């Protein structure tokens, strides 16, 4: 795969020996890594290996208990102001979309900009409509989430995250809950986003997407990154047995 022309050398997320426990259960066992501005990283690995937990520590939906995480120059601590600052810079897209069912799609998108960024309502709506055009679903603006398809809902969710003009986007298995025929419409907008230079951390099993878009593939197993490499190396020349097994299993279907 070609080098990403957008990637810079400025680090934007720095993780140092990040540990996380759920009660006694050690979920993250010392993650140390750095993501650069504009980098696209794909995170894969078996279910339960801590992928979701890891990306959720980056916007503090989960609290890590040891180590440091620095996002855009701000260290994540219990300081609420820092957490809210970071959440404004980090957008997140969930497996189950998590759209707000009582709000129309456009209100789902404008809520953050109006309430958090203090954007005037009019400007927020215009920006939201522009995003919906970019997502190819401008005609769904005034419907409720339950009235549109899963693929459309996930694109609204992406627009909701982008409306905050984040520097980083986190995706947690964005296509896993979708019917097969809707996966590509979501991957298309993610691909477009990747080419626009957004820093992206994507947990996914879509290996085609990883090969095409990623600068780096990270393989999680039992709370540690056991292998990371550029996609070409990762897929064609995996080092670890676990990785080889995982790749062969994932590519089978």
């Amino acid at each position, binding site marked *: 795969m070609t080098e990403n022309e957008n990637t810079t050398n400025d680090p934007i997320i720095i993780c140092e020996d990040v540990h996380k426990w759920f009660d006694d259960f050690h979920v993250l066992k010392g993650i140390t890594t750095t993501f650069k501005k504009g980098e696209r990283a794909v995170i894969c690995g078996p279910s339960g290996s801590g992928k979701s937990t890891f990306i959720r520590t980056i916007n503090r939906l989960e609290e890590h208990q040891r180590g440091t995480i620095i996002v855009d120059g701000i260290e994540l601590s219990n300081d609420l102001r820092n957490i809210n600052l970071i*959440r404004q810079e980090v957008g997140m897209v969930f497996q189950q979309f998590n759209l707000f069912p009582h709000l129309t799609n456009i209100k789902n998108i404008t809520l953050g900009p109006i309430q958090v960024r203090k954007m005037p309502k009019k400007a927020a709506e215009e920006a939201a409509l522009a995003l919906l055009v970019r997502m190819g679903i401008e005609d769904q603006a005034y419907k409720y989430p339950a009235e549109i398809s899963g693929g459309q809902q996930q694109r609204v*969710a992406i627009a909701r995250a982008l409306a905050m003009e984040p520097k980083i986007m986190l995706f947690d298995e964005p296509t896993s809950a979708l019917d097969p025929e809707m996966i590509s419409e979501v991957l298309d907008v993610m691909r477009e986003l990747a080419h626009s230079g957004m820093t992206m951390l994507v947990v996914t099993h879509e290996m085609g997407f990883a090969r095409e878009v990623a600068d780096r593939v990270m393989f999680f197993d039992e709370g540690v990154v056991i292998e990371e490499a550029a996609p070409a190396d990762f897929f064609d020349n995996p080092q670890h047995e676990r990785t080889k097994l995982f790749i062969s299993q994932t590519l089978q279907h």
Partner: protein
Amino acid sequence: MENLAITQEVKPPNTSKSPLKWLQDNLFNTWYNTILTCLALVFLFLVFRGVLTWVFTQANWKVVPANLQILMIGPYSIEQVWRIWIVLDTLLVLLGLSAAVWKGLVLRISTVIASIGLIFLLIPLDLVKKIETDPATLEFNLNIVYLIFFKRRWLLGGLVLFGITFFLGRDRNSLRRWVIGGWILSFPWTMIVLHGFGENTISTTNWGGLLLTLILAAVGIAACFPLGVLLALGRRSQLPAIKWVSTIYIETIRGVPLITILFMGSIILPIFIPGDFQLDKVIRAMIALTLFSAAYMAENVRGGLQAIPQGQVEAAQAVGLTYPKTMLFIVLPQALRAVIPAIVGQFISLFKDTSLVSIVGLLDLLGIAKSILGNPKWQGLYVEVYIFIALIYFIFTFAMSFVSRKIEADLGVGKH
């Protein structure tokens, strides 16, 4: 949330039947069902005949019109009744503005209320009385003008103001927050206007009847709702102190009968409060009712909060919403919507529970009814008086549950 794909709605096959067919299928389909239906009809006939005979030939309804004023406003001075009218007219103004800026259901409800006002304005009840007593001196046309433009000038004025404010406020949605502020201010405003100040004060001991019942219920409802929401949020808080205080409060109050709390407020509390600082009796009853209902309200709201998936909170946090805003814009709207029937049920309970204040010596609707029955002139007319006040309670509670169903339908509960 599920991943809902759009499905084409297919109408069920048309199964509506003619009434005759329905009767045949449901009431007379087997020989035993036919017998049961006939027995039920005979039973209903006997009951209705008994009730109607009593209502129209045996009951002494004179007690109601003779005491109508005291049932409505208690010992409140009739010379000061303009104060009540000021309050009602204020409410009509707010109603007109609300109808204008919210439209939809609010507009429909306001229209119904204004129409009821209009009916009262136009029904010539007093004239009917006059015709009965003194038909000779009647000048019908003049009298109706007199009736509407003078005797009922407050009602007329209120309805005109309702119309004007509705007209002026149309489509000015930016007024919404002011209207909400107006509704909140209407509570202290009502208290001040009804009470007055200086030499013209009307002590709350003179507030009574339906007036007092409505004030107690309105204050209780308006105050227990936010308090209940806060308690529900408190009980689910991550902070142990807040969590425990809320939980202990809710469980304690729910373990104690309302009447005990009313007694504590009206008899025990004053013993401990020193000197001349004595909280007004009516206000103490309001506080007791509010504190009591808030605990139940909290549990209703908590039920709704539990139904909201964690993903909703996470999505809100992920766009950077603070905790209060997450609750206000995401969690509470969904949670409250899910428990509207329970909340309105709580309001209805509260409305009926106000009747307990008659036990601690307030003259609410029930208190007045008791005092009327204590009068030798009306001795023994229990059934008439109680049926009448029951009817009043029913009208209000029925209206509340009707509105609740409309709100549910309007918000499309279970749809979005």
